[in-house]
């Protein structure tokens, strides 16, 4: 295991930070307040090359470079929602198309995603299939030239804005998990409706809603991979998705810690800086410990995946520890800032609202603990 990054990797991370700070931090308070998604910023990210990190012209994904880049994006971009949404598309839609798509599908679907001209979502969760996701009810019945899709996908990141949805459905119920297949369904397809975006606690700049399929015909050409490849498609990008999503959150935690340190150094009460009070400095020390332990877990997962190795246990440890740490440190950041931190316009409390989602999506903290203990033989 070697965590020393090359100059090229570090330089690229710094370029991403500079890009994000210069281009992505305007209007964030209003966009959060009004739950607005910025297609303009999305396009800027594509023009810079963020979405290209998962490109079919770059099939050998450099996990370490991409991890540092997404960490830099989380550090530089004050809106935690935008990196989250980008990660969702890049690693749960673009990457599966790279690995399972044919050349025609790569040209048709990947190119506009990488260029930022289109947006895609990963549609897996259903009303009755959350943590138990493979108990899905959406069906895809074979018919001449394609499939008829029926069912509902719920709480889909980017769902309301997506030009294309990667949808998982049961093609053969007799085969259990082997009977799932994946389909690329385009916006406007007859029988496919997208809800408006739902109001939520945090990550408000990310569109989030439901997809409904009612006798929706999808051509066989739009099936991703073989019939029955759904299980493999869901699982193959799972560890990488956790790595990159939480790389961005690690960047946000680093930004949060620096802002807290600057504030407690400058803010004076009782004639001295509040950072000199042990109750405050101890909190800063705890935030630093959470940041660095999260970083070690993240880099270990990135290193394992870069080596082509399994990281089942490590990615669960990462997901559990980093997401819970971000919540704890976000509360500490508000404590450090006092009343100033509680007021939305000062951009401290937003991190807490954004962090809470992390202990729920992509496998709740409870599920991560179950996975970890099961791997340990319990």
């Amino acid at each position: 295991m070697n965590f020393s990054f090359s100059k090229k990797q570090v330089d690229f991370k710094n370029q991403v930070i500079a890009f994000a700070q210069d281009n992505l931090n305007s209007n964030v308070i209003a966009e959060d307040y009004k739950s607005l998604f910025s297609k303009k910023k999305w396009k800027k990210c594509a023009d810079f090359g963020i979405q290209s990190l998962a490109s079919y012209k770059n099939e050998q994904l450099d996990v370490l470079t991409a991890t540092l880049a997404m960490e830099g994006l989380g550090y530089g971009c004050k809106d935690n929602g935008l990196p989250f949404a980008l990660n969702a598309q890049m690693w749960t839609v673009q990457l599966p198309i790279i690995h399972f798509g044919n050349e025609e599908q790569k040209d048709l679907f990947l190119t506009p995603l990488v260029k930022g001209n289109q947006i895609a979502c990963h549609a897996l969760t259903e009303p009755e299939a959350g943590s138990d996701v493979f108990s899905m009810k959406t069906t895809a019945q074979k018919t001449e030239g394609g499939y008829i899709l029926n069912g509902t996908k719920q709480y889909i990141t980017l769902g309301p804005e997506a030009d294309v949805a990667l949808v998982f459905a049961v093609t053969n119920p007799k085969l259990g998990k082997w009977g799932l297949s994946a389909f690329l369904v385009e916006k406007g397809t007859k029988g496919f409706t997208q809800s408006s975006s739902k109001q939520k606690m945090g990550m408000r700049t990310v569109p989030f809603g439901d997809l409904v399929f009612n006798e929706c015909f999808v051509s066989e050409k739009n099936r991703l991979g073989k019939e029955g490849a759904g299980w493999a498609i869901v699982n193959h990008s799972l560890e990488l998705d956790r790595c990159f999503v939480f790389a961005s959150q690690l960047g946000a935690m680093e930004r949060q810690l620096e802002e807290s340190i600057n504030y407690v150094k400058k803010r004076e009460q009782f004639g001295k800086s509040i950072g000199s009070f042990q109750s405050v400095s101890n909190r800063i020390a705890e935030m630093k410990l959470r940041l660095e332990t999260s970083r070690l877990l993240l880099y270990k997962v990135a290193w394992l995946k870069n080596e082509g190795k399994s990281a089942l246990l490590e990615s669960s440890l990462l997901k559990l520890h980093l997401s819970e740490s971000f919540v704890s440190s976000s509360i500490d950041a508000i404590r450090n800032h006092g009343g100033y931190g509680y007021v939305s316009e000062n951009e401290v409390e937003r991190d807490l609202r954004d962090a809470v989602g992390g202990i729920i999506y992509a496998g709740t903290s409870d599920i991560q603990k179950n996975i970890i203990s099961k791997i340990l033989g319990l």
Partner: protein
Amino acid sequence: MINTIINYIADNLINEPLDDDLEPEDDLLGSGIVDSMGMMRLIAFIENEYDLKVAPDEMVIENFMTVENIVEYITTKNKQQ
């Protein structure tokens, strides 16, 4: 090879105790003998034990439904390497 894989599954991956011994022709994932995470752990075990890399598009029913399928897949894969 069959016994090594069966023993690994029986010792590490089975969800609920089985009425009978695990057989080479039992459907592992489809029948719920192992869950999704268990199958991913089995694939990681096979990669380490038999020094091979399972490509994402090879994680299909033809290769991983039963222990018999897995042994056939490993044998074919090793011949190709």
